[in-house]
């Protein structure tokens, strides 16, 4: 696991604030998504953005050809700022932070749902709805299978884990019984 650079959060926050101030949040959000798709789809683009050995003028020429016409003026200005600060290498991380921040502003949280056996999309939706009511937010769950849970399911939203699995209950029972055994070596 790799941590995103702290600076990514600051740039993402600044872009978000400017987008709101300029009433261009939806356009900028669309641009960010597009940029992230481009980065995910092209290793060459990632290599290019990280390569500061190229002359600045040559880099700017490529960037202009790529994005000057397609991006919203605010996003394009942001890209040029990153280029001048030699920070285009973390464009993807900034994009991820931007999306997370935007989702948080909209009251949206993402989480994972692990169950011993695959759940129907209706069940997943129901669990997400219940969790959403509990948290007061809209929850988007990514479901997955984990046979080790034996039965039931386990939810993870942010740092919080709600373990309603059979394996989790057996672990709790074990801890309760061990604690009842008195002092241990």
């Amino acid at each position, binding site marked *: 696991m790799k941590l995103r650079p702290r600076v990514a959060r600051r740039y993402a926050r600044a872009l978000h604030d400017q987008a709101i101030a300029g009433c261009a949040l939806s356009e900028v959000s669309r641009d960010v998504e597009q940029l992230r798709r481009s980065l995910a789809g092209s290793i060459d683009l990632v290599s290019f953005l990280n390569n500061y050995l190229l002359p600045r003028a040559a880099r700017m020429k490529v960037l202009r050809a790529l994005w000057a016409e397609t991006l919203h003026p605010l996003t394009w200005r942001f890209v040029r700022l990153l280029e001048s600060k030699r920070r285009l290498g973390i464009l993807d991380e900034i994009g991820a932070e931007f999306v997370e921040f935007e989702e948080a502003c909209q009251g949206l949280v993402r989480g994972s749902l692990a169950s011993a056996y695959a759940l129907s999309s209706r069940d997943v939706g129901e669990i997400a709805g219940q969790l959403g009511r509990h948290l007061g937010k809209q929850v988007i769950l990514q479901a997955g299978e984990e046979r080790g849970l034996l039965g039931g399911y386990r939810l993870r939203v942010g740092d919080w884990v709600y373990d309603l699995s059979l394996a989790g209950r057996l672990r709790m029972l074990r801890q309760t019984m061990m604690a009842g055994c008195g*002092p241990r070596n």
Partner: protein
Amino acid sequence: MAVDLRPEEITSILRQQLAEFDGKADIAEVGTVLNVGDGIAHIHGLSRVMAGELVEFSEGLTGMALNLEEDNVGVAIFGEDRTIKEGDPVRRTGRIASVPVGEALAGRIVDALGRPIDGAGGVASTEQRTIDIKAPGIIERADVREPLQTGIKVIDALTPIGRGQRELIIGDRKTGKTSLAIDTIINQRGKNVMCFYVAIGQKRSTVVQVCETLKHYGAMEYTTIIAATASDPAPMQYLSPFAGCAMAEFYRDSGRHALIVYDDLTKQAQAYRQLSLLLRRPPGREAFPGDVFYLHSRLLERAAKLSPEKGGGSLTALPIVETQANDISAYIPTNVISITDGQIFLEADAFNAGQRPAVNPGISVSRVGGDAQVKAMKQTAGTLRLDLAQYRELAGFSQFASDLDPATRRQLDRGRRLMELMKQNIHEVLPVALQVAIIYAGTQGYLDSIPLNRIKDFEKELAERLDREPRDYLTQFDRDQAMTPDVKTALEAVLKRLSVTSV
């Protein structure tokens, strides 16, 4: 402790536990291990974790959150970190590190988390205490007035220690620092003082040796050893003095008396330096972190004499610090000297010259112990420090002098005898009445006619006579605890008879 249970009883207990078990959802705040190594793990997540909170790794290992940063938490791991992998989940426990306390710990050897390591079964303790708590405030304290006898002449006479005091034992390696502390523990037998010996970064064989010595002298029954040896991870070495202190505070806060020895704080500071550097805290002087002073001051501030309203209990601390080549101006020694209420300075030269305990009376001081000194000792040893200081000065000067006047020679002879008198064999602690008698003999000139090599015999003979002959002196001393004319007369009678036969 083995408990006999019949199979049907076990079944019944299990059935009851199962019936009472409520299958609620297990809700926990969980983080993820980013990296791990050298006893330190960095965790992503755990955004609500408290400083000093215990966290639990998937293998059941615990750790303590020390660094709370914007995007990760630095955790000191209590145990072997080999089983922890990158990406492992880490759970918050909501608990601050605590250890078991109480009478059940007496006679046991435990680790920094209070887990027994002496193979004698579990510790049947019912109470837990947070290891890092705030020291008692000003209102809760009282003056240090009661003596804590070490049983060592040179200490009880020149640098007396009071209950609730912090007295530093400082010196190079192999100068008798640990022996001094062990003798003090041995001397607490029958004095209602519970003792705690915290071994930090020492060899396991040394800990066994200390335990055996204490057992041999019957001191282990009122002593607990908290061991974080050299092979234990740095977090355990960092934590062990705090754990020991929490155990000792149990007695202080219940109106009783406790003594704690930290052997030694240099190693604790080194463990803390290792932790801090791995946690990427900025290094300062000698690469120690900036808060190493606070580390020791907050630990030693917990030694206190409480006011009668708070039960009047006390916790006396004897921290040990090891110096390199007698350099007391290094970072840790100066820090601890400034925190404590005095220091006993041990010298390698004196030790090698056979002066044992190798206390340097010139620079050893006790800032508050004077008020706690037994009156008889105060009256007897009042001039001793001055006499010894004059002797040291004259002895140095006389090296160059070819001819000395009779007065100077007399002073030198008296000084030599007093120095000889200050010698004491290891683990041979003396009751205060005998100490006073011996020092009285020295300062009043009863030894002037006795050859230097017979001073030890004189001491032995004096102890035997005081015990054997009509016990006027001992009886009166126990009653008055001061050098009243009656006590003096009784003692002088014995000394006169003895000096005649000893010449």
